[in-house]
């Protein structure tokens, strides 16, 4: 017996499998980056939509993931910046772990106080990361960045071709979604969402909300690291500008536009932020204006994000059902 939700998920998965078929390299590349940014945004959603904290460091965590993966997978060089020549399967967990640990380290002091402190600290951290990447050229290649990261080869499945890399990304995406789903639906995940707003309630059950908020932030950061670890072999060229503050803001936009606090909200948001510019290409110079106006209209009329649209329509038809009432006014940025 299949539930309605599972039917939708299956339909979505089939659509994702069929999407790149018969498309050119560029379209497939765009789809890849959609999936990758979806993962980063889903991680940020854990911080913003579930923990209610604003992080502006998701691009910095992507940078940590991307540079770690690049340095570990690049072949050793005679001169200039070289790597260790390890397989992606080895490099990826290390990259994710690195982002997780850095997340813990910067989240620990920032989450001791409430309010917008995490936003400030992460803003500074993103700027700092950018400067380190640009200035420490013995390690990071400076403004020239790192070039030629190999795409993973699994023997029977070489991801060198764009379409194959897409399916590889899709597989990682599916596993990632299952893991995130497991985290959110575990008793701890549920407790976290239920208790974060009421400290007495949480305390009476022995739950230290500060500690789980930190953990949520670190897991969200690790998701950024994973995304970075995929960006390196996708683009095969990384430089500091790819991970500047504007990209953190973009990911924040993805979460809010898609629907903060909804599991697949960020996937839809990432779709809008990454794919809409492609669709609006024909408008040439007006693209940014149309884009900005759309986002503003959306935030005014649909603060829960695009995924909330369906719910608004459903509520018009049937008034009794309410999902995530706490997100009525959006994520309260």
């Amino acid at each position, binding site marked *: 017996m299949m539930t309605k939700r599972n039917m939708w998920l299956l339909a979505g998965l089939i659509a994702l499998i069929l999407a790149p078929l018969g498309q050119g390299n560029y379209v497939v590349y765009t789809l890849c980056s959609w999936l990758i940014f979806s993962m980063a945004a889903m991680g940020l959603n854990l911080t913003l939509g579930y923990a209610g904290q604003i992080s502006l460091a998701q691009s910095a965590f992507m940078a940590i993931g991307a540079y770690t993966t690049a340095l570990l997978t690049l072949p050793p060089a005679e001169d200039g910046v070289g790597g260790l020549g390890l397989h992606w399967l080895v490099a990826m967990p290390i990259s994710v772990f690195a982002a997780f640990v850095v997340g813990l380290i910067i989240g620990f002091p920032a989450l001791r106080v409430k309010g917008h402190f995490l936003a400030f600290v992460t803003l500074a951290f993103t700027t700092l990361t950018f400067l380190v990447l640009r200035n420490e050229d013995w390690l990071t290649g400076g403004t020239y960045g790192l070039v030629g990261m190999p795409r993973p080869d699994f023997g029977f499945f070489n991801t060198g071709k764009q379409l194959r890399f897409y399916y590889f990304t899709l597989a990682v995406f599916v596993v990632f979604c299952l893991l995130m789903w497991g985290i959110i639906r575990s008793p701890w995940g549920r407790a976290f969402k239920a208790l974060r707003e009421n400290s007495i309630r949480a*305390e*009476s*059950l*022995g739950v230290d909300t500060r500690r789980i908020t930190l953990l949520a932030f670190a897991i969200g950061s690790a998701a950024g690291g994973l995304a970075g670890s995929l960006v390196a072999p996708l683009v095969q060229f990384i430089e500091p500008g790819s991970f500047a503050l504007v990209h953190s803001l973009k990911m924040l936009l993805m979460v809010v536009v898609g629907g903060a606090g909804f599991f697949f909200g960020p996937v839809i948001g990432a779709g809008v932020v990454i794919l809409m510019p492609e669709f609006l290409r024909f408008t040439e110079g007006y693209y940014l204006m149309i884009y900005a106006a759309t986002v503003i209209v959306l935030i005014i009329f649909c603060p829960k994000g695009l995924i909330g649209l369906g719910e608004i329509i459903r509520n018009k038809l049937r008034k009794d059902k309410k999902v995530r009432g706490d997100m009525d006014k959006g994520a309260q940025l």
Partner: protein
Amino acid sequence: MLEIKDLYGGYGKITILNGVNCEIHTGAITTVIGPNGAGKSTVFKAIFGLLNVHSGAINFQGKNLVGMSPAQIIAEGVTYVPQGRNVVPQLSVYHNLELGGITAKDQSMVKRRIDEVMEIFPALREHQDRKAIDLSGGQQKQLEIARALLLDPKLMLIDEPSIGLSPNLVKEVFATLQRLRDNGVTVLMVEQNAKAALAMSDYGLVLELGQVRMHDKADVLLNDPRVGRLFLGGSMDEE
């Protein structure tokens, strides 16, 4: 089982508890009464590790709870039901119960305990898939008490269980607490509704200005004119 010795504590620099001394009778219901601001709820917070204790000791089964985190204190067998509505409205009854065991390492034990607790509260089993917000006020209080029982506590601290409930439901909640006592749980309760609470308790404890002024059998307190005066705004020392 629970012994409080020279307990001083408060919020920031303000001291609320000025040397609380008492020994709580095991396997009985003790009601803490006293005028507003006497430190009733504050004592609970101190026992449960939510208060900055300046000095003194809280010995529970031979261990000093001062300095332990709420999670550790729960593991020692103390549970706390705060004032007001504490169910998570958007979660189901079952998932609310599950939260009661969130600090336990063994989650299969939690599942078993949920089953046992629902044995005690059949209404909760009947509504286990409903959202907590859809329960009546009385059932929500039952759910809170059930949730607090999840890790099989020896001592339950319950703060103002009668708030917001109709007299009939208050009776029901009190009856539930008596049933818990009969099953060996020691209950320490703070109640604004002093008369009704003392009438169903075994012992009473009068707190004034952060000190224990009286600690006696509940019916003794119930008939003591000084207790009545205390609640009319006077002090116990007036003649």
